[in-house]
């Protein structure tokens, strides 16, 4: 009887110890994702994936050079009111009259944009162009105080950084008022 009792007692004592060995692991960092540095933004510390800007509105108008070919359509560099603007694009409100098409679009290669320096850049790198005037916003966007991020909050785990044109329309960048979701029910109604 006595050895049995001792054995039982020992087993009882060992039980909580055995249970504690299965403490849930808190480790998270598993296999590292391949990290992609956006080549054009060396200042951006977040090794994030840039979200693609949305496609052009309306009909299939890209590549622009299909029509805006210097051999086919003569380039008129005069700053002027357009007689026959694209009706699928927003009317140009950006800059309140201080800007016009060829300030951003390249006259020689219509499928590209150009910086003030004359350097041409593809549409995907448009934030560089926007940042020429909106330097403060550009710096805030790189740092993370401006703009939208989705996906994963951890660096290098699939954070998606939205570019300017994901939220702002290039030709009319100011946000339009939107309809709000309905107000929550007042507690006196629900109770």
């Amino acid at each position, binding site marked *: 009887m006595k050895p049995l009792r001792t054995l039982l007692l020992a087993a009882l004592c060992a039980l*909580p110890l055995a*249970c*504690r060995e*299965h*403490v*849930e692991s*808190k*480790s*998270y960092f598993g296999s590292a994702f391949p990290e992609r540095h956006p080549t054009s933004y060396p200042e951006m*510390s*977040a090794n994030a994936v840039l979200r693609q800007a949305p496609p052009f509105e309306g009909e299939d108008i890209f590549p622009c050079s299909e029509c805006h070919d210097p051999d086919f359509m003569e380039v008129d560099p005069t700053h002027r009111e357009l007689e026959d603007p694209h009706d699928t694009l927003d009317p140009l409100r950006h800059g309140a009259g201080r800007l016009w098409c060829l300030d951003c679009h390249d006259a020689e290669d219509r499928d590209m944009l150009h910086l003030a320096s004359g350097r041409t850049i593809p549409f995907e790198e448009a934030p560089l162009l926007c940042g020429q005037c909106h330097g403060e916003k550009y710096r*805030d966007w790189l*740092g*993370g*105080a*401006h*703009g*939208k*991020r*989705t*996906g*994963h*909050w*951890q*660096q290098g*785990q*699939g954070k998606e950084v*939205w570019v300017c044109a994901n*939220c702002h329309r290039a030709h009319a960048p100011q*946000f339009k*008022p*939107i*309809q*709000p*979701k*309905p*107000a*929550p*029910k*007042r*507690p006196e109604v*629900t*109770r």
Partner: protein
Amino acid sequence: MSPEVSRREFLCTVAGCAAAAAVGGCSDITHTDFFRKRFRELEPDELKDIIADLEARQTAKYGKQTTISTKGPLPGVEYGYALDVSRCVGCRRCEYACFDENNQGHDPEIHWIRVLEMEQKLGINFEESDPYYEAEEVPEPGHFYLPVACQHCRNAPCVKSCPVGATWEEEDGIVVVDYDWCIGCRCCVAACPYGARHFNWAEPKLPAEAQNPNQHYLGNRPRPKGVVEKCTFCIHRVREGQYPACMEACPVGARTFGNLLDPNGELRYILENKKVFVLKSELNTKPRFYYYYG
């Protein structure tokens, strides 16, 4: 009772009968409900049983395969949130994204996020603010908007006021509630200066099609009647690396979530470069939720 029955035998019999009644007798309350310990004292095996039981009950009730995570804090992480007041347009997209994500009661309606409409000429004035504004379009002229949810304070009055220890601050800074330990006294509701805690006055009605089956034990699993609930930074999402639902939903990019301990993170940039403030700083609650003018 015969005098031969010893005290020991008597107690054993009583305890045995009580256990048998608890296990087999009640239809609704199971063994785990009845003898449950508080969340932080549960052994892994006990927790596994409880989770399996909760998952099975919800899968049967809502007809969706439900998973309830108990994932702990990630090492080296302290969550924080920043909101650009100058960006917010008051569209309430965040409020409803939170509502859908966190299995909030549809009747009575509970919203963890409140978007407060404030008059520009009054500045931040909670007494004159209105979460029930009706508007055709926002932002309304002369107004600005301040979404308020749990501020995840470092010095949280709600945690201090709980008489049973059913709410606490996790290592990653998330203030959580153990819904099965809460006694519904509502001391925390009174203590919170931000109105961030909500009480289930009635059995929360959650339509089956609205149930989100991706859940966390301390987060968005459906709550019973008579307990307090609040924002958990979407604990079931952020501990898996995802952003909270409110941030994903914001159409103007006013919201920023991240790790305060990451020196290269967005939050640290905001804290170092922007005019940042916290709500009711005079109360010394030390929130992890920052507001700024971008």
